[in-house]
Structure formats: structure tokens, C-alpha cells
């Protein structure tokens, strides 16, 4: 009778739960690692894209100066990258302590998804 019962019984509920739990932890760990790696790769790509956009924008602004104090270009009008350009007067003195006129600081901020970076240059424009 005893041997018969032993032969018939399967795993206990507890054993099955533990086995499933161990397996689930392993799979979740693998997927998390994979996801993190993919996310990091995406961030690197987006950073490169943002820097490229900033360099292009600076090149553009050297040829065509910004004619207002603030310009915002929304992401959907600029292949997914949001641009914000501000022009503020910048105090700059030469070595004799004289104030240089018409020097302004142009700051360009590019945002793609959650990544953002900015660059600024000094421009000479009245």
C-alpha cells in the first residue's frame, strides 16, 4: 500500500512552485540584461545623432545668424529632434578692459526622446 502510494505521487505543489520560480528568475535576469544592453546601444546612437544635429545646426547658424532671441523647432518638424536656440548678450572684454560690443552667446539645445545635449558659441552680431 505504501509503495503503491509512493509510486503514484508526483511533485508536491511546493516543489513545482520553487522550480518555476527558479526558472522565472533566470529568464527575467537574462531578459533584463538583454534589455539593458539594447537600451545602452540606443542611447549611444541617440547621443551621436544629437551631436551630429548640433554640429550641423552650428554650421547653419554661422552662415545664417539667428534673428530673434529664442527659436524653438518642435521634434515633428525636424526629423524627430527638438531644437531650442537662444541668443543672449554676452559680456566680453579685451585685454585693455574695454567692453566688446555686439558679442552674443548662441546656445543650441537638441532633445531626442529623453536624451538632450547643448552647445554654445559666441557670435558677433548687432
Amino acid at each position: 500500500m505504501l509503495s503503491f502510494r509512493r509510486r503514484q505521487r508526483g511533485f508536491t505543489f511546493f516543489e513545482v512552485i520553487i522550480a518555476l520560480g527558479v526558472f522565472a528568475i533566470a529568464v527575467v535576469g537574462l531578459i533584463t540584461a538583454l534589455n539593458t544592453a539594447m537600451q545602452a546601444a540606443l542611447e549611444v546612437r541617440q547621443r551621436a545623432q544629437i551631436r551630429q544635429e548640433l554640429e550641423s545646426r552650428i554650421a547653419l547658424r554661422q552662415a545664417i545668424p539667428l534673428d530673434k532671441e529664442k527659436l524653438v523647432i518642435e521634434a515633428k518638424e525636424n526629423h524627430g529632434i527638438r531644437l531650442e536656440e537662444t541668443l543672449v548678450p554676452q559680456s566680453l572684454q579685451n585685454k585693455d578692459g574695454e567692453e566688446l560690443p555686439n558679442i552674443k552667446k548662441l546656445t543650441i539645445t537638441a532633445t531626442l526622446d529623453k536624451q538632450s545635449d547643448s552647445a554654445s558659441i559666441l557670435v558677433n552680431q548687432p
Partner: protein
Amino acid sequence: MKPPTLHRRINRGFTLLEVVISMLILALLAGAVYAIVSAALSASQATMAQQLTLRRLDAFERVTREAFLNLPAEGGVTLEIGHSSGGSAEQDLVISKPQGIFGLPSLAGGSIVLAARAKSDGTRTMILLTIPANATERERNQAFLAPGTPLLPHLRKPRWSFKTTPQDEEWKEELPVGSAKPILIRFQTEIDELPHPVESIFYLPAIAATPAAATSTNGSSTNSTNSITP
């Protein structure tokens, strides 16, 4: 009769059904692990290809930007079409008389060409060609057909466009020989490894002619100052 049966039952191994079920479970687990690992591997391969492309693109933009920024007053930029052997209308951007690029010497007044050449897989490869100074027409045509140095592979629809003055609203697609030097140069393309289209804008500063060039183009004023001195 009974004891042997009990003995056999205790000592017996797994039934065929149990073995088959356990093997099935093992196969399922192995399959799941294989799927995850192969997905990770292909993702990492794609990422590596992407990183390499990004680095190449960055290097390409850097040297191109440098070439434009350091272009002397007597240098120029033109877009020439239809130099490749296949007869297709490929765009070749000719930068004449650049200061050194890619560690090349300043070419002694020669030109460099950024040319997009079609590959058999339908993509283009951006290559760098050099044309020596004082090349004859024949030597120049030969130089355009050279294999060149590959810079960017797997491009699709590479195109150059230009603005000649800051007031230009539209980007011009043409820049024939003899036209005014552009102020902005735009390069657009799609690259197989990258999901987003690539657009780079380069600034070509307007440089006053060097004293030597100024003397030749503006000879009258130089003469007048000379005549005052004695």
C-alpha cells in the same frame, strides 16, 4: 508471486512516457534559452555594426568639415555628375585646392573628390579620390574612374545640396563648374545600419583672398598705392 512483483516495482526505472515528457520539457527549456541567447547575439552584432557605422560617419563628417573650414580662398567646390563608368548619374563633389585632408599633403593645388559609387547590392559607397594639380583632361577622367579610398559603405540615396547666400530659402541641388562658392553644404543619405536618415550641414566660411590673390584680382588699387609711395 507477490514478493517478486513488489521487488520489480521498487527497482524499476522510468516508464517510457515519463522519459518522453521529461525530454520534451528539456527540449522546450533548451529552445527557450537558445532563442534568448541567439536574439542577444544578433542584437549585439547589429549594435556593433551600428557603432562602427556611427564612428565612420563621425570620422567622415569631421574630415569633411575640416576640409571645408580650411578651404583657401582660391579653392572651390563643385558638383559634377556622371563620371562613373556605369553611365549612371552619380554625384561627385569636387573640392579643389583643399588644405591637407586625411593626413594627405595639401596636394599642391590638386583636388579631392567625394564620390558615391554604386555597388552590386544596390547601395552606394562614398569614396575619396584625388586629382593631381595640372592634370590633363584625360588624366582627370582617369582619376575619376580610380577605385579610391572607401569612406562610408552601404549608403542609399546620397545627395548634396547647397545654399549660395544666407538669403536662399531652398537648397539647390546643382552646383556646376563656375558657379559661386556655396556658403552652406548639406549632405543627406540613408545608411543601412542606421534607422534614422542622416543629414549633415557644413559651413564654408567666406574667406578674403590671400594677399597674393588680392594683388592679381585687384591690381588697380595696388598700383595706385604703389604710385603714391615714390
